[in-house]
């Protein structure tokens, strides 16, 4: 089971769909402890990402328009650059850096193994971890700060653990999704220490973090994309 360019594209399109479907929820969560724009901003960004994917021509008509990204790294880089350029706020640099670091890691793996465009399970997990490390480098968040890190980090840990225990990638991503969702829910009692919610101090307690919520959707979309590929 590998994650090829098609699977990555399914992931990205799936995430865009989940963001659009949860746009109001994300904005509502952000109204409580932030500035009411997370759903709108992420939806604008992912809509632009999908538009960039749609603008490429099928290989047979390559001469008529831009060719589709040929490798995992190229696709992830395009997603990251588009998010950095269109989302704004804190989410733009954070999600953008996540995909750009994933792209670098994916490029290193495919160059080293000569596997071309596809990532195997451990390589995909490694790329996700590189993305997570990028989020930490950019946002300086730690566990318990009530940020997207609190959903992403447990998910990446769970994915590594499941793969190490011999689980197939599909099952490992399902476990990662459950970990992300548990991490998201665990942000509710936390007191925010990063971002705009931190200004509220104790008043941020009792609210689910919007960034952790969108990050849980990101992992769920990956699980769905890989599951779909197996059918």
């Amino acid at each position, binding site marked *: 089971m590998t994650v090829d360019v098609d699977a990555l594209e399914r992931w990205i399109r799936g995430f865009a769909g989940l963001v659009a479907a949860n746009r109001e929820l994300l904005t509502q969560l952000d109204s409580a402890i932030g500035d009411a724009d997370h759903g709108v*901003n992420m939806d604008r960004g992912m809509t632009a990402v999908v538009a960039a994917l749609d603008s490429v021509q099928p290989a047979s008509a390559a001469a008529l328009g831009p060719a589709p990204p040929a490798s995992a790294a190229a696709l992830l880089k395009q997603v990251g650059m588009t998010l950095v350029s269109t989302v704004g*706020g804190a989410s733009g640099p954070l999600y953008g850096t996540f995909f750009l670091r994933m792209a670098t890691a994916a490029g290193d793996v495919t160059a080293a193994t000569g596997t071309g465009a596809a990532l195997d399970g451990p390589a995909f997990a490694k790329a996700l971890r590189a993305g997570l490390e990028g989020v930490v480098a950019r946002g300086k968040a730690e566990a318990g700060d009530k940020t997207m890190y609190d959903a992403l980090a447990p998910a990446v840990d769970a994915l590594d653990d499941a793969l190490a225990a011999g689980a197939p990638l599909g099952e490992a991503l399902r476990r990662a999704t459950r970990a992300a969702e548990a991490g998201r829910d665990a942000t509710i009692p936390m007191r925010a220490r990063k971002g705009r919610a931190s200004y509220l*101090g104790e008043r941020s307690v009792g609210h689910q973090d919007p960034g952790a919520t969108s990050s849980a959707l990101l992992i769920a979309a990956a699980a769905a994309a890989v599951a779909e590929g197996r059918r």
Partner: protein
Amino acid sequence: MKKLINDPADVLAEALRGIAAAHPELRVDHQHKIIYRGDAPVRGKVGLVSGGGSGHEPLHGGFVGTGMLDAACAGEVFTSPVPDQMLAATTQVDGGAGVLHIVKNYTGDVMNFEMAAELAAETGVDVVAVVTDDDVAVQDSLYTAGRRGVGVTVLVEKIAGAAAEQGRGLGEVADVARRVNANGRSMGVALTSCAVPAAGAPTFDLPQTEMEIGIGIHGEPGRQRVPLAPARQIAEYLLDPILGDLDFTGGDGVIAFVNGMGGTPLIELYLMYNEVVTILDKAGVQVARSLVGPYITSLEMAGCSVTLLRVDDELVRLWDAPVRTPALRWGL
């Protein structure tokens, strides 16, 4: 919430068209949503670039012009602009003396300006960033994103802009900007919330009988909700934490800035200014200069903020220096 808009999605683009039409002395890049001084880049002058989410007008676009900013990058409402915008603005205004980024301390703004500065460095432009963080409502800074940048940002843009106009170098202009930030403190109050056009509804509910103390400029809730009080009492709520945070007595006094949040009429701002100077007088704080009006707003939010800036002779001279922008204009 009733608004003078067409489509919520077009608010920023259409407002920029209006700014371009009203101020032909400025140049507006509609694609990148950047407002430029008409004569940028000014050769040999340090370029000043600021920017941030929209909805705070006249900040920042209204402060572009001689003696203040060279370019302002407009983000979506309450959303930081993106690095592409800041990079474009930075390369466009560099007159060979480098570029100062004036960044309000919000997580998104800081990260996007950081990414832009990294990209600008690759193109060989000298960039120094100064982050404003004057809001005393945010305490406990180890456990927060740090103090927010609010009212002092206007004063930094004016004073650093004057220093740049005199032909000072990038390091010196940045030092002036940092000095203004370090000597400025602010605190705000909201009587009502505000509605982001795309959301359509107020960001938070504030009953008729209550007000929110310690708000920022994004409709985010403040630190404390208290019963509505007379202006005299509100002035105390705002000034007590400011005066408790920094000694404003002695020296050459302060620039006292009463800022409207967008929905409060000027008559009430002047009434508040009267309360502010009464308290300052009692506290032995001398007022060197004043600024009263809506300069850094939060859409249609009712309320105000107070900023005090401790000044010396040099800062007063830079404050008095000529400026010609849509929102601040004197001496030219």
